[in-house]
């Protein structure tokens, strides 16, 4: 394809692509994101294509290998359009029947349908599945429309029209104002007003400016940025080109976590295609605007996602944060004004330009607009990527979309915002997904992580887990974070080991404030959140650990005792055989006994017993 030399050429090209696809009666979407690739989707794609060939349907059926649909636990996922039938956990062996029965005869294969765990019913259509039904997939639906390796798909779906609109007659300042009016706030964690950042960068003096896309995504459990960049790279790129035009940048970087090989690959391919088509490079689409993008692989540390550390890493230095008394919009990469936004933030830009700021700000709350992608995990029935309008209550996400508790125990709390977010109890589940509301409640929206916890979770143990992660990932440069967080961990560990003293609770709060107020970067500033929020909502659990040396959830090993309920024990001896430490004694057919001196509290007997005769206290 030659470079598009003028703005009108895009529409002509789009028509050509759409026309060339008129002959297809069915489109089959097969997910080939990182999650589904792990569950063998490449083999399914190959088998499916072979079946189309041998059943002579390859001219009628278009197969599109798409990026992630966010429902990875059911993968590989296949959707048949236009009917919208969804098959999950498709195996290569299923392909023959899918072609011969579903495509040829319109029969639905019951066994491949999704079973709703709540009602036990099989649901044929994608749009009726509860997991999808209550979502607003403004961003994620883009992943269904394109093969991430195909620029033609993106153009056919209306891609790059926002860019042409901008180049055709919007002044850079007007672009900034549109973004400001939309009310978009950064999706990378901080929720900083995007328009304001653009305005500041636009006004910053200097000829040479940069834009950066932050795809470092270090939060454990989060993968929305991967999903968007991997599944729809041109959308992110289009957002960046528009941003570069608005602030007057000459060069852009996409900084991708190195653990995301597919995202790196797709981003690189997208950049190359965009150059060939003339969306990047000199005189974009025949205009006087020139801009180019490079893809860089991240350093692999959590802290490299922090804006100043990321820039240091891009410059080839060690990825450590620096003080931000001067903002990066003024002095960023190589001390030049730099506009850095998160993947999801960039991906929202084309929609705002195409549909207008009012369309975007119609969704959401007073202070948080648009939709947000959340990574729902933990003890709920449906896990995966969930996109909802800002303002959606947590309860709806967890119970309606997530389907509620998955193993019988009642849900107790949700941890939102990634490792430095906070834990909110069920009593707070009416809180909306809203930057300010969650921050006020002691947690945050963050990058959108959402871990649901049930009654089997010890909140002190949760705090310990996140502190451990954070002190491990601290870069170690500044005292409050390096030493302070480690001391927090030391104290919380004392609690879980039954060595806690009441006055340590005051120390914990005092130290937490010092760390929040005085740390150099956002990692340290937010690191006490897991402790503070659990302390705020689950203080009685802390007190049980400290005063009674008891772990109410039965998790903290040092504080629990396994015993055999003599009434319930049938003397089957399963536990005795399971115990690797020889701690269980008793004669055949008689109730067993646990020797607490030998017991290592591994819990194997507990999971082995069929009669619920092992007690934890």
């Amino acid at each position, binding site marked *: 394809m030659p470079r598009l030399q003028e703005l009108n050429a895009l529409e002509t090209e789009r028509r050509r692509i759409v026309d060339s696809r008129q002959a297809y009666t069915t489109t089959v979407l097969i997910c080939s994101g990182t999650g589904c690739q792990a569950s063998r989707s490449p083999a399914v794609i190959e088998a499916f294509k072979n079946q189309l060939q041998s059943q002579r349907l390859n001219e009628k059926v278009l197969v599109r290998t798409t990026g992630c649909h966010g429902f990875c636990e059911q993968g590989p996922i296949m959707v048949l359009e236009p009917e919208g039938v969804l098959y999950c956990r498709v195996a290569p062996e299923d392909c023959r029947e899918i072609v011969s029965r579903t495509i040829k005869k319109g029969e639905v294969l019951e066994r491949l349908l999704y079973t709703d765990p709540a009602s036990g019913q099989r649901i044929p259509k994608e749009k009726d599945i509860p997991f999808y039904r209550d979502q607003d997939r403004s961003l994620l639906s883009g992943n269904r429309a394109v093969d991430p390796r195909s620029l033609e798909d993106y153009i056919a779906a209306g891609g790059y029209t926002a860019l042409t609109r901008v180049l055709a007659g919007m002044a850079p300042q007007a672009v900034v104002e549109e973004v400001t009016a939309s009310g978009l706030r950064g999706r990378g964690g901080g929720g900083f007003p995007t328009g304001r950042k653009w305005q500041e960068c636009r006004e910053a003096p200097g000829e040479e400016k940069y834009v950066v896309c932050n795809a470092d995504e270090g939060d454990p459990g989060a993968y929305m940025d991967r999903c968007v960049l991997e599944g729809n790279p041109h959308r992110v790129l289009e957002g960046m080109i528009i941003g570069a035009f608005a602030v007057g940048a000459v060069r852009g970087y996409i900084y991708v976590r190195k653990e995301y090989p597919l995202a790196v690959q797709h981003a690189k391919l997208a950049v190359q295609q965009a150059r060939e088509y003339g969306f990047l490079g000199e005189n974009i689409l025949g205009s006087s605007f020139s801009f180019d993008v490079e893809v860089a692989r991240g350093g692999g540390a959590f802290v490299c996602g922090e804006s100043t550390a990321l820039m240091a890493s891009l410059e080839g230095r060690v990825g450590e944060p620096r003080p931000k*008394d001067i903002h990066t919009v003024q002095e960023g990469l190589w001390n030049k004004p730099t506009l850095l936004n998160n993947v999801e933030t960039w991906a929202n830009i084309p929609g705002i330009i195409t549909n207008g700021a009012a369309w975007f700000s119609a969704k959401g709350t007073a202070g948080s607009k648009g939709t947000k992608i959340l990574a729902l995990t933990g003890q709920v029935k449906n896990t995966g990527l969930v996109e909802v309008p800002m303002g959606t209550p947590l309860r709806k996400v967890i119970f309606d979309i997530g389907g509620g508790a998955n193993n019988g125990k009642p849900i107790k709390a949700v941890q939102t915002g990634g490792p430095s977010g906070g834990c909110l109890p069920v009593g707070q589940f009416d809180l909306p997904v809203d930057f300010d509301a969650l921050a006020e409640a002691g947690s945050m929206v963050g990058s959108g992580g959402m871990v649901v916890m049930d009654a089997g979770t010890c909140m002190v143990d949760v705090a310990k887990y996140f502190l451990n992660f954070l002190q491990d*990932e601290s870069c170690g440069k*500044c005292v*409050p974070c390096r*030493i302070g967080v480690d001391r927090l961990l*030391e104290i919380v560990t004392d609690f879980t080991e039954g060595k806690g003293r009441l*006055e340590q609770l005051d120390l914990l709060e005092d130290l937490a404030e010092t760390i929040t107020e005085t740390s*150099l970067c956002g990692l340290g500033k937010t690191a006490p959140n897991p402790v503070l929020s659990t302390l705020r909502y689950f203080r009685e659990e802390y007190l049980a650990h400290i005063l009674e040396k008891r772990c109410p959830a039965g998790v903290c090993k040092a504080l629990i005792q396994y015993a055999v309920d003599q009434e319930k024990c049938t003397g089957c001896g399963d536990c005795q055989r399971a115990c690797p430490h020889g701690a269980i004694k008793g004669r055949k057919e008689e109730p067993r006994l646990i020797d607490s001196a030998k017991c290592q509290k591994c819990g194997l007997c507990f999971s082995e017993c069929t009669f619920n005769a092992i007690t934890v206290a």
Partner: protein
Amino acid sequence: MVQYVTLRIDGSIVKAAKGSSVLDAAIQYGICIPHLCHMPLLEDIGACRLCIVEQVGNGKSKITTSCTLRVQEGMVIQAHSEKVRRLRRNIAELLVAQAPNSRAIQDMAVRCGVKEVRYPFRNADCVLCGRCVRYCRGLAGAQSLGFVGRGKDRHVAHALELRDLCKHCGFCTANCPMSITPCAGPMAKGEEHLCGGCEAQLQITQGMEDQCVWCELGKGFDCSRHLGQ
């Protein structure tokens, strides 16, 4: 021509060269802000966080380190507000609990008002202020020392094991806050404590408002005001 700006630090009107740091400006006017990682002529990295101040403006206040904060016209700085003192004391407490065998750090703790240490002592032999690393890379131009590792594992080491880059200038040890042991000698393991021996001297100087502690406390580990003389 050097341009000057005027700002307020702890109520005093201070004139400082544009581009200089709030810490430098304060020291020049005899306002002592405790600091550890800062050293004249070296790049400031904001690591120890002892030099924190409260920047007041627009009805808000923000805690930030004065060594990395550049002076600005009309700036209002509180270097010794109630809040700053409390936070600074907590940081000094973390440091002295980490490295009780440094006279410099013991002195610093006393100056920052640490009266008790609420953590078990550790006996680290480095607090990662990075003076040596920055001296080596900056003034000595030797690139021999660097930071290695992350979080708790962070430590100073010869970069890439290239010991022969060292020019043996010795400034790294001369400027190391760990190199002078407390008056009564090194503390045995398990017997670390807050020595607090110099507290009496401190009380004399505390009466003098807005005065740097021209004390003997930092003997061997001069506060940068001495270095300037």
